[in-house]
């Protein structure tokens, strides 16, 4: 099924990096789960910021600082609108990893007690495992893990059993980076909250694929990275519910995050600045807002339908491909194909695809416990975005046929 409203070539033209040859072949970029490419609107915003606006925010008594502050805080409002939150609840971070670390430090380590439990799932990215594991080690709490069913979706019966009044924190990926599985987070968050748990969603693999509304999800914390949403690297977001952010101690201390300082004591600035010590990533925030504004101007339903079509095509071809085993066959997925070729190491497949201009990721995808649970060393992952074409799906499988001749 093709979506008539979508002019894919016009869309691709806005991503200059896509128009190049790699190893003598037109680039087929299927590593969008690792990072997405940037539209001209974002490149221009970054360029304009450094050429014409660059100045420190919140403190200058001059024109440029006013301009920079206005754009920086405007960017925060853009993100707040994007998630349906208020601007005081939007913290700038380096990315999803730092966002989750803030919650793990300022809520996890502060509140967890021996006997408490933190509940996560088998398919989490290391960024949503290690901060909780370390918070548990520091406090004597226990990390509990939801297992997977055969299709790599979460075992929701096990979730019900594992969730109890000792569950103080429930942290879950919205979509799995390694497999693409879409988790029923709204329902799970509601159940965890009913048990009194603080709820955290790792949205790194979600925001570029479908709309996210933190009010609708009723989640306490939502984390994502700018660079997986067509924005720059080094900028991310932590949404936190106001009452929780108010109650949390600061994550880092220093300039910007204080209200008053003496050598004996300091008092903290109001939200969101309490969590933003030091000069922030101003250009990153402005670039991310440009990415979101650009994304909002697109026909989002048409883009989603296009991604659904990509997933359908890639799944259909994968099922027909001799010797290919799909890893992760859940009914609800984002546009990701994780797979193994019989008798082939994922690293070999990745290198031989690269030689044909096809960029994928291979390995454990920062999900070692997941790979251990599946009994495999890793997979090959083709992760799609809005600008990929159905022809590129075909290019992937043509290239895979060639790979097979090497094995």
């Amino acid at each position, binding site marked *: 099924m093709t979506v008539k409203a979508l002019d894919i070539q016009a869309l691709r033209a806005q991503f200059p990096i896509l128009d190049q040859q790699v190893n003598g072949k037109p680039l087929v970029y299927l590593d969008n789960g690792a990072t997405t490419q940037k539209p001209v609107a974002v490149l221009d915003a970054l360029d304009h910021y450094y050429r014409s606006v660059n100045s420190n925010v919140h403190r200058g008594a001059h024109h440029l600082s006013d301009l920079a502050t206005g754009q920086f805080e405007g960017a925060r409002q853009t993100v707040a609108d994007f998630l349906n939150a208020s601007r005081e609840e939007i913290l700038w971070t380096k990315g999803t990893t730092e966002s989750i670390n803030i919650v793990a430090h300022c809520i996890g380590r502060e509140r967890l007690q021996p006997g408490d439990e933190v509940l996560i799932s088998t398919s989490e990215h290391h960024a949503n495992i290690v901060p909780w594991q370390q918070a548990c080690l520091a406090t004597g709490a226990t990390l509990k893990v939801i297992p997977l069913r055969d299709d790599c979706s979460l075992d929701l019966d096990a979730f019900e059993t594992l969730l109890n009044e000792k569950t103080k924190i429930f942290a879950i990926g919205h979509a799995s980076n390694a497999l693409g599985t879409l988790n029923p987070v709204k329902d799970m968050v509601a159940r965890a909250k009913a048990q009194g748990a603080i709820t955290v969603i790792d949205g790194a693999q979600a925001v570029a694929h479908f709309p996210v509304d933190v009010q609708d999800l009723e989640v306490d914390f939502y984390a994502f990275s700018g660079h997986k949403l067509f924005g720059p690297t080094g900028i991310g977001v932590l949404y936190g519910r106001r009452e929780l952010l108010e109650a949390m101690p600061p994550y880092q201390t220093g300039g910007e995050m204080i209200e008053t300082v003496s050598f004996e004591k300091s008092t903290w600035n109001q939200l969101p600045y309490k969590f933003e010590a030091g000069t922030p990533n101003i250009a990153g925030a402005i670039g991310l807002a440009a990415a979101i504004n650009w994304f909002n101007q697109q026909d989002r339903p048409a883009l989603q339908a296009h991604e659904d079509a990509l997933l359908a095509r890639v799944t259909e071809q994968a099922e027909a491909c001799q010797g290919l085993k799909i890893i992760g066959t859940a009914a609800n997925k984002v546009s990701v194909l994780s797979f193994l070729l019989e008798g082939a*190491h*994922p*690293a*070999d497949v990745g290198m031989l695809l690269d030689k044909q201009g096809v960029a994928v990721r291979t390995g454990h995808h920062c999900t070692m416990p997941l790979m251990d649970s599946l009994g495999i060393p890793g997979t090959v992952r083709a992760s799609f975005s809005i600008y990929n074409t159905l022809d590129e799906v075909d290019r992937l499988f043509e290239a895979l046929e060639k790979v097979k001749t090497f094995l």
Partner: protein
Amino acid sequence: MFDIRSINLGKDITAEDIAEDLEFLDDWEERYRYIIDLGKQLPALPDELKTEDRFVRGCQSQVWLETDYDSDADTLYMAVDSDALIVKGLAAIVLSALNRRTPQAIHDYDMDAFFDRIDLLSHLSPTRGNGLRAMVARIKHQAETLAA
């Protein structure tokens, strides 16, 4: 029966041979088929030798390295294995340059220059995470210790 001293890379197949072969292969397919074939000439390391201390961790693929120093002949013998075909082939190329040589010669060898010459330097780059760079570093370190 696994015998590390019977591995002929560095003896019957030298780095010079490989460089000359690769010069004639200009299309990527031929080059990579050649590299994979080189790897297949390396005997598999027996499982009992695939121990933690012989393990060279890579982010994506793994390498095991076994060495055996003959002090009378001042010669270092080596064997490698990998779970990935291309990495094993590249490891065979490393052995063609370093196997059966003196610790001093191994220490002095410029592996980056050789991989640059055969246009495979990107495989030795730190970003590849294939364990190959760490393997070369481990061999060099051992040679340095022996030569000291």
